[in-house]
């Protein structure tokens, strides 16, 4: 009996391994994968954005794509390594909080490329690891131009605007991506009118909606008629305030017009989808390079501001032309947008 079982198991093992080998050979298409952060899919932001880039490549027949959702931070390394062991050639890790884990996984799986979303690595980078970040200041700059024009020169376009030439920003925390957005916003507004008054409040949290609302109301009390939210879920409160007190909000990261179509003028967006798609295509073409920090911006088509939706008719052509011109100037390098508040003489 024992001998039968052993023979059976040995046979199963051989056939199984042979099966895997066959499977691997049949996988002619490159295999690209990602792990979400603990927010999972359905976040309407980073996780969805990166997955959309991978599925776009998959739908174009370029790759096979897979996503694993993480439910706790302890899932990050198992997911990242597990996908590599499963045969993925490029694995995306989403979110600032995965910085250490992705470096660990990259060192443990040197044959697989890893891309860290919203990561910028200091010092020596493992040759198979790519940091992916954005020049958020470019999106902030475009939003700042819109705000700069609408708050003063064209304040008669809408009853939501006043003639005080004050705009506002509600920040979550003074972390680099937020600071970049904000620096760009101030620079863009000042490029329209150097005397514009930009007031800002740091709420210290990315998850307290009521606090975001109070911050925006405080800015509105001081005369701000356009307030940009740079505070994640706290920023939803800024949109609440805009809806209640009747002023304009500007969203961030993705097009947030749907949250309050009558009060969200535009949004400063960063293209996680486009960047994921670009990197995937590089893997397929065979010219992906690891061991670097890739920074995406207007020049790569991975930064933009959202359409004006129902405000398209009240935003004057001069403003739209200014935005288009700024995009071209930034992409060509003619304008260099500041990425820190120190360059503007401010302190966070």
């Amino acid at each position: 009996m024992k001998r039968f079982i052993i023979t059976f198991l040995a046979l199963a093992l051989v056939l199984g391994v042979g099966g895997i080998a066959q499977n691997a050979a049949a996988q002619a298409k490159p295999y690209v994968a990602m792990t979400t952060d603990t927010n999972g899919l359905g976040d309407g932001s980073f996780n969805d954005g990166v997955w959309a880039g991978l599925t776009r490549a998959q739908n174009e027949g370029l790759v096979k794509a897979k996503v694993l959702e993480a439910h706790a931070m302890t899932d990050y390394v198992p997911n990242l390594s597990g996908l590599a062991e499963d045969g993925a050639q490029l694995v995306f890790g989403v979110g600032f909080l995965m910085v250490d884990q992705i470096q660990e996984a990259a060192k443990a799986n040197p044959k697989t490329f890893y891309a860290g979303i919203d990561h910028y690595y200091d010092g020596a980078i493992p040759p198979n690891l790519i940091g992916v970040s954005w020049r958020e200041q470019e999106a902030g700059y475009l939003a700042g131009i819109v705000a700069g024009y609408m708050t003063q020169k064209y304040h008669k376009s809408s009853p939501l605007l006043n003639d005080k030439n004050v705009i506002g920003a509600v920040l979550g925390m003074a972390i680099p991506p937020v600071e970049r957005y904000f620096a760009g916003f101030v620079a863009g507004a000042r490029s329209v009118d150097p005397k514009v008054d930009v007031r800002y409040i740091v709420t210290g949290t990315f998850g307290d909606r009521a606090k975001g609302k109070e911050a925006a109301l405080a800015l509105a009390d001081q005369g701000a008629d356009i307030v940009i939210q740079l505070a994640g879920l706290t920023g939803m409160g800024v949109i609440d305030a805009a809806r209640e007190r009747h002023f304009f909000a500007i969203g961030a990261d993705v097009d947030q017009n749907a949250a309050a179509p009558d009060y969200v003028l535009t949004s400063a967006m960063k293209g996680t989808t486009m960047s994921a798609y670009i990197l995937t295509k590089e893997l397929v073409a065979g010219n992906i390079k690891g061991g670097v920090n890739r920074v995406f911006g207007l020049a790569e088509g991975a930064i933009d501001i959202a359409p004006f939706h129902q405000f398209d008719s009240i935003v004057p052509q001069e403003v739209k032309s200014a935005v288009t011109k700024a995009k071209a100037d930034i992409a060509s390098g003619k304008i260099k947008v500041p990425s820190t508040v120190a360059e503007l003489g401010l302190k966070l």
Partner: protein
Amino acid sequence: MSLFSSLLTPQLLEAAVRLSTPVTFATLAAVVCERSGVTNIAMEGVMLVGAFFAAWAGWITGSPWIGVLGGMAAGALFSLLFAWAAVSLHINHVVAGAIMNILSFGLTRYLMMVIYGRQGSSLALAHTLQEYKFAVPGLSLIPYIGPAFFNQTPLVYLSMISVIVLAWVLKRTRLGLSIAASGEHPMALETLGRSVVKIRYTAIVLSGVLCGLGGAFLSIENSDSFTEGMSGGRGFIALAANIAGGWTSGGGFLASLFFGFVDALQLRAQSLGIIRIPAEIFLAFPYVATIIAVAGLVKRSRPPAAVGKDFKAEGGDE
């Protein structure tokens, strides 16, 4: 000097009242629960669950008033779990409270995906309680405090009414005195034939209703949908407010108002550029103020004698 006059505006006081409302509800919940002898650290979690179900009920029926009922019911039912754990199963109150907080976060995230299919914020309500803002005739004309306290939205008024009602209940009704006794000397209560278990269950469910109202304020009065984690630590501030208030309804209200005031102050002070210091120092103000208040007042503030102690009725018939 004009910077200060632009800081101490009527809107500041109005913001203070608004910011303190959810904390007031949670503080009243802490008062009623702890006075009955049950240490409650789960206000944060119950408020979150209340916020979720208030938003869901308001969204699905189209009426924010049903939303309020939904929040109250959810708070009551969720805290029944806490009551069963702490009172019937004799689990350590702090442990049971911690479990409730963890459970609330997971439960709301899970239900968020199941019901709405997305993370972050739930779908917006068609109507929120913000539409029902009204000014109390006469009282709202009092300079400074009039507009702040008496030109507000429904749940803000309800929170102030609850302060008065709870104070009266605790001092003047049989239920209230039983609750107080249950927290000071439960054995005496049992000897008189009143069931401590029933009293504590009642107190906990009441606290659940209050936390549910606090949550409802956050999701369907102050905003138009539920956002994950929106209780934002207010349940824990309520613990401090309760202690600073000496386990009384009125004291708790003043303490939570104080916190709301300092919070509103620091937000506005930041943007006025009065002093150029890092934002984090401003952000710490309310919490430092609370620590000072609690440290300064705790000596004079005496907790109920039997709070946190498990009670087993001898030869219990429950």
